[in-house]
């Protein structure tokens, strides 16, 4: 996400850092580089100019006071960071809940921005927090948009109010109105209204959207926008602001490699905060938008805050507490614990996404992209093919057991051997740490699946081994 912009910023700052003392002409050069980076990232020219003017002025103002400081480049960096956060909306804002439920959220945006999927994500997000949302299918335009919302609703266990089949039939305003009444009568505390995608220039559909707005009187109108959007973001968001009005912005498809200039443009031009960000096709891949985290991401500082939060969600307190107790009591870390960790890691989502949040990830972009997600799955398969006893006591793993595990997991015996070797090494290390009292860092299992796979050439010996495991290894099974 934002990688290209990130590496551009990285370049601008590393050349600034290489200077001993920064002059005003260095600042001009840096500003020019940032200008180019922003333009390539689809930020609207007027927004770019304003932003550059702002940081140029602040940097030049600050320069005299920085002369003696050792790290002038960092001070300039801070100025840029702060300006980015300011544009992206300052403090993250939450949805305003209505005093008298239901809280009504209406979604609006262009075709294909991701409204229907987002409706499901929002519903899940708030249902998980103990709310009782109802989805209203007011997109009667696109073929089968209603069905799509029903499927989405079903998969997040949120009811969908859909009296009309859509496909061009029915009145979306009436549906929306009836939906609100239904929600009131059934005491849902939140209503999310999905509407048809429309172009900023389509007066008729824009009118329909404002009619829906007037009918449901929403507490929040969210403008849904694709992070890959180009310069038209400015015109379109202005058209929506004038035609329907909106209170906040939701950025979708942020898991792509879009530079996300649209986000900067829209936030800056409309003065509406970006409230949510959608980061994947699955219905849980969605979060509140944090301007300061996004600014860090753009500048290549990594997004440790998000990472920590995801880890906390995935490694539930029970598991962590159990592990800690085990560690303290001197018990061995077993393959069963390892499996639990692997499962927690998969819960955190895609590894390359996780690694991408680490500071300096911009520089390792290629490696991260090539991270083999399957490695975790394969490792899990091997451990899951073991009996509980074997997981607790890896010493049991003799040749024939290993051969069986290899069969069961569809891997080679060498893969099983490899895993067991790496595991025993980690186990040994843990013991040393405990006995030597060295500070413990990450949970030990964490690093294991990411380790490079060692594939040994298996053409060394010609004779057949009596041990089935070894034999399989020789035959390259």
């Amino acid at each position, binding site marked *: 996400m934002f990688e290209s912009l990130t590496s551009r910023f990285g370049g601008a700052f590393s050349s600034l850092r290489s200077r001993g003392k920064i002059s005003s002409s260095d600042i001009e050069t840096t500003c020019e580089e940032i200008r180019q980076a922003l333009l390539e990232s689809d930020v609207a020219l007027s927004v770019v100019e304003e932003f550059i003017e702002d940081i140029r002025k602040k940097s030049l103002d600050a320069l005299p006071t920085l002369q003696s400081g050792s790290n002038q480049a960092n001070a300039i960096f801070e100025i840029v960071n702060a300006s980015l956060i300011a544009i992206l909306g300052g403090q993250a804002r939450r949805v305003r809940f209505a005093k008298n439920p239901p809280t009504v959220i209406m979604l609006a945006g262009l075709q294909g921005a991701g409204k229907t999927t987002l409706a499901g994500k929002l519903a899940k997000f708030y249902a998980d927090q103990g709310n009782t949302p109802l989805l209203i299918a007011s997109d009667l335009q696109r073929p089968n*948009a209603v069905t799509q919302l029903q499927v989405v609703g079903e998969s997040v266990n949120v009811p969908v109010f859909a009296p009309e089949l859509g496909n061009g039939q029915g009145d979306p305003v009436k549906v929306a109105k009836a939906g609100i009444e239904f929600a009131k009568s059934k005491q849902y505390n939140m209503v999310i209204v999905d509407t048809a995608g429309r172009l900023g*220039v389509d007066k008729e559909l824009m009118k329909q959207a404002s009619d829906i707005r007037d009918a449901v009187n929403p507490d929040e109108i969210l403008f849904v926008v694709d992070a890959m959007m*180009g310069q038209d973001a400015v015109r379109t968001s202005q058209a929506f602001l004038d035609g329907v009005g909106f209170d906040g912005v939701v950025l979708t498809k942020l898991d792509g490699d879009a530079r996300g200039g649209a986000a900067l443009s829209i936030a800056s031009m409309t003065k509406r905060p970006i409230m949510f960000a959608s980061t994947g096709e699955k219905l849980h891949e969605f979060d509140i938008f944090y301007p300061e985290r996004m600014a860090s991401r753009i500048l290549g500082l990594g997004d440790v805050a998000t990472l920590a939060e995801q880890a906390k969600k995935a490694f539930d307190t029970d598991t962590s507490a159990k592990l800690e107790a085990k560690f303290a009591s001197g018990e061995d870390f077993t393959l069963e614990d390892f499996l639990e960790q692997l499962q927690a890691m998969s819960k955190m989502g895609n590894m390359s996404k996780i690694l991408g949040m680490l500071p300096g990830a911009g520089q390792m972009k290629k490696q991260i992209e090539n991270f083999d997600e399957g490695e975790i799955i394969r490792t899990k398969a091997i451990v899951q093919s073991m009996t509980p006893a074997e997981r607790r006591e890896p010493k049991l793993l003799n040749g024939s057991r290993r051969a069986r595990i290899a069969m069961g997991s569809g891997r080679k015996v060498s893969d099983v051997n490899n895993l067991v070797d790496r595991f025993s090494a980690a186990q040994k290390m843990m013991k040393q740490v405990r006995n030597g009292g060295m500070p413990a860092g990450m949970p030990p299992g964490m690093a294991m699946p990411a380790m490079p796979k060692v594939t040994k050439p298996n053409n060394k010996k010609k004779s057949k081994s009596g041990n089935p495991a070894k034999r399989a290894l020789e035959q390259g099974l």
Partner: protein
Amino acid sequence: MGLFSKFIAKIKGTNDFSPADWAELEQELLASDLGPTLTNNFLEAAKKVKSDNAELALIEILTSNLSKNSHEPVLVAGTTTIMVVGVNGTGKTTSVAKLASYYKKSGKSVVLAAGDTFRAAAVDQLKTWGSQIGVLVVSGKDNGDPASVAFDGAKNAHESASDIFIIDTAGRLHNKNDLMAELSKVKRVVEKVSPINEVLLVIDATTGQNGLQQAKIFTQCVEVTGIVLTKLDGSAKGGVALAIEAELGIPIKWVGTGESESDFALFDAQSYIKGLLS
């Protein structure tokens, strides 16, 4: 008056274009999503124009960025197989329907494969289109293997000796390696029945410079032979498609201009180029 005609009028008249005018032109070109590189190239070339017919000269500069490859859709004897790919939400399914309708109207027999087994109700969406247009839609289970649906469709199209076979695929972001690998698999599997003659990448006209990246990676993966530029009926100009033509040589073949099945046309270079500057 559009900026372009203003520009032309100025050149014709006094030939005196102030820095502010150039800045305005730059802004306009950037706003069309041409991107900074193409914009700078254009401005530099434009500054050298001394022709009496400045309008033609400037259109020529932009036109020279178009791909030298043919902008005509591929048609072969027997079944022409077309695969439609792209990122999420660009209008792939709608484009598949529009293509089907176009060929059906020109008297060809058409079979569709509902290869988007991922997005909720995408198969239904295509089926609804299919029954509206009157073409057969081959489909499988939701969340099923898209390659097997495409394979079944290809077999069906060949056995029924259909003229056109179009495969819809699920939207995928180009930076998801696993999903891109799935797409190559669909292509590989279909090509067991017959070669894919055309791979159309659907680009949303509102897309910014990321479109270039999309085209690059989809081409690496499945050899894109043409672009369908959708949503040109909005305020977006789709300038990134010209950047794709210039940098990657992939021609725009079709243009989508609305939600109805008839809002679809063959690419017309002149109106596209003029649109960029209107």
